[in-house]
């Protein structure tokens, strides 16, 4: 959560120095999300996760990843969006309890964002979403909503 911790104080002392951060942009539904690249181990494209019957709903299934079996978190289900049939991309993240995959519609490019454009979560966001989001960057014509990988760890989601 390095970049996040960097952003928060920035937000409080806004007029200070400009800090740049690298963020991987992903698309889920209509929205652009960002994940700090420091958390990403690898991006796996076109994966078809194997469903796990009886698993908690947020589990998107299993994928074979470097000799291991990786549990994925289906972002569409976490965000309560409708399911999508097409192949999806996976961000492999390293969490406190081991690696896990984040299932997104597609992975875009890596963007360099500036702390100048950062805003914290708006107050009208529902409580559940506020957990998963860590503010947003105002880009040209669109918002890049930052995801909070710590809160998307399967262990954490399961506890909720």
């Amino acid at each position, binding site marked *: 959560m390095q970049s996040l911790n960097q952003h928060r104080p920035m937000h409080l002392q806004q007029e200070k120095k400009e800090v740049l951060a690298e963020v991987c942009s992903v698309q889920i539904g209509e929205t652009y999300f960002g994940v700090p690249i420091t958390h990403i181990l690898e991006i796996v494209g076109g994966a078809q996760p*194997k*469903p*796990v*019957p*009886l*698993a*908690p709903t947020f*589990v998107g299934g*299993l*994928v*074979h990843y470097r*000799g*291991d*079996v*990786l*549990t994925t978190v289906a972002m569409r289900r976490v965000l309560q969006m409708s399911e999508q049939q097409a192949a999806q991309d996976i961000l492999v993240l390293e969490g406190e*309890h*081991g690696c*896990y995959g984040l299932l997104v519609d597609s992975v875009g490019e890596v963007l360099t964002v500036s702390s100048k454009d950062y805003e914290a979560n708006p107050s009208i966001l529902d409580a559940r979403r506020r957990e998963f989001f860590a503010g947003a960057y105002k880009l040209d014509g669109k918002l890049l909503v930052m995801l909070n990988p710590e809160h998307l760890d*399967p*262990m954490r*989601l*399961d506890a909720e």
Partner: protein
Amino acid sequence: MDDLTREFLIESQEGLDRMERCLTDLEERPDDKELLSDIFRSVHTIKGTTGFLGFHRLEKLAHTGENLLGLLRDGKLLAAPPIITGLLELLDGLRGILKTVEETGSEGEAEDAALIEQLKLLQALPAELPVSATAKDAEARAASPELHAASTETTTQKKTLPTPPPPAEPPSEDRVPVKPVTAAVAATDSTLRVDVALLNQMMNLVGELVLTRNQILQATAQQANFTLLARRLDMVTADLRESVMKARMQPVSNVFSKFPRMIRDLSQMLHRKVRLVLEGQETELDKTLLEAIKDPLTHAVRNSMDHGIEPPEVRMATGKDAEGTLRLRAYQESGHVMIEVSDDGAGIHVEKVRSKAIERGLITAERAAQLSERELLQLIFLPGFSTAEAVTNVSGRGVGMDVVRTNVEKIGGKVELESRPGLGTTLRLRIPLTLAIIPALIVKSVGQSFALPQGVLSELVHIPAERYGREIEWMEGAPLYRLRGNLLPLVFLEGILKPGGGEKPGEGRENFIAVLEVDERRYGLVVDGLADPEEIVVKPLSTVLKSIGIYTGATVLGSGDLALILDPGSIAVRAGVLMNMQQERGEAAQQQAEGDPHDAEFLVVETSGRRCAVALQDVLRIERIPITRIEYVGLRPVLNFEGQLLPVEDAGNILGQRDRMIAQDEQITVVVCRDGNRHVGLAVHAVLDVAAGSQLREAGTGRPAEGVTLLKNHVTGVVSLTGVEALHEEFSSGDQMMVGTNVP
């Protein structure tokens, strides 16, 4: 020769081998303390054990040697060449006696006086190495913990020496250093002795693998005969895997060997008389697993000694032999290694367990009242449970059984406990043969593949869609199947995986029942489809998925697909299948006993349009293999099966002419049977059924007819397996005799 002596011989041989190596090194580095301590340990161990086994000649010799080595180790003597010569002579002397022991079982009568005298003379050589007393002591102690365990022995021995008094700190038992001991254990744990022949074989196979890989790489470019290469790669990989597994296997005696000494010490400490019986020491187990069961076994043995076997007076009073028996037994059972620790002690009093569990707050009184005896016994495995009246040094801290179960379950094993008050207790550890790779049946349900460990699978039943209504019976919503007359509870995998589905899952389509036996539960798991059995590599699941409870892991199938590995035990629990197998088994056994002994069961096969029967008890398995796997020795068809040559009897001429053009993918069925100790294969067109046959009698004489049986009112010929010609005869008589007679 008893096991103890044999073990002692092996152990001493190892010790002496090590001593020899060390002695030669010592010549180059005469002041190396570690080498000296190592040699000292070898001799000391021999001395200790010989005393115990009553080999006095050995003991005397080893004792003299030990005195000399003690001086060397303490730096009072320098390991000069004459001393090393003397020590090597000692080594030969010890080896000589051990050899006599091995051959005759006793030490023999020869005198070692000359050698002993020589060793004593060597002790008088002047000291040349000044070393500070504390350093010496510390080093000596770090290096040889055994010395201190036998501290009294050392001190008396030192008194007899004409040399200056021992260093400042006398060795004391309570100061036995812990760290060096564990370090030493770790060192032996991480090394493995491997047969050189096996290593060579592995190296060859790795070479083969590399070659095949190279060829595959080239072939991909040229698109040559891929199937052939793939088959070779498959074979090499299988062989290599087997070799590596073999290299990891170790006899359980490696662990068992620690117990005689432990029992001896414990029986002195606890004032018990105990006889230790070790059985099945040659049973092999993966090295990692062996290490993992060491602690649980130690706990179990301690528990048996402390809580199980009663003091001699008590035993006498109850009419038992004053000497208790503790039995450690290892054997293989359906893909598992079983290790039993049983004693003929007091047993576990279920009522005591109940009240103790309530007292300790592990269970409520109401709940305890509902539990069966069997379930009550399981309470012993709860953390913090102990029935010992007093906490002793040996056990009774309430960690033992909990630790036993946790450790065994960690490696995928199971712990079973059986106890009869007054008669004894048996603790059974069920350990998988190996950790990483297990054979599994791939089953299909809800449109996905799942792996079912084959260890629990006893048979498969196919229910075609049109027979669903007739063969699957419902008792108030509970599905049942009549398996040879007995009702088998069914669990629909679909119903488990997708709760809240239809009333009758699987209706209107083909179903397969996998009859499973797990934890004393027997049930049929109904799946939509079967795929080939595969050897799967178990990959762990994330905690989130493991906590679902019905999956033990996941695996990657040959097709590249991922499959979840089902846990048959948890599925049974989830579906509410009760533990009643014992009872059923008992009934089945009774039925069998009552039935006519001639009414054996037969496998009905078809070859060239004829029906034949094979006694079911002789059938090991049925293989469906590509016809190309059949090879020929002379004209005899054989099957290279897992490295073993299986003669194939081809009565129906299914394999056809040797040079007939055969399609690459043609499959044949081979029934693998047992004939005495050998295995033979029968090539058949189809396997039809399993049926009970009844004895036919010859008209007139009334004698039982041989070679035929009555199956479903048809007289059917029984295949005589003894008629299948042995392979080795053919080899010995050369290749001239090429045509085997076609029996049945």
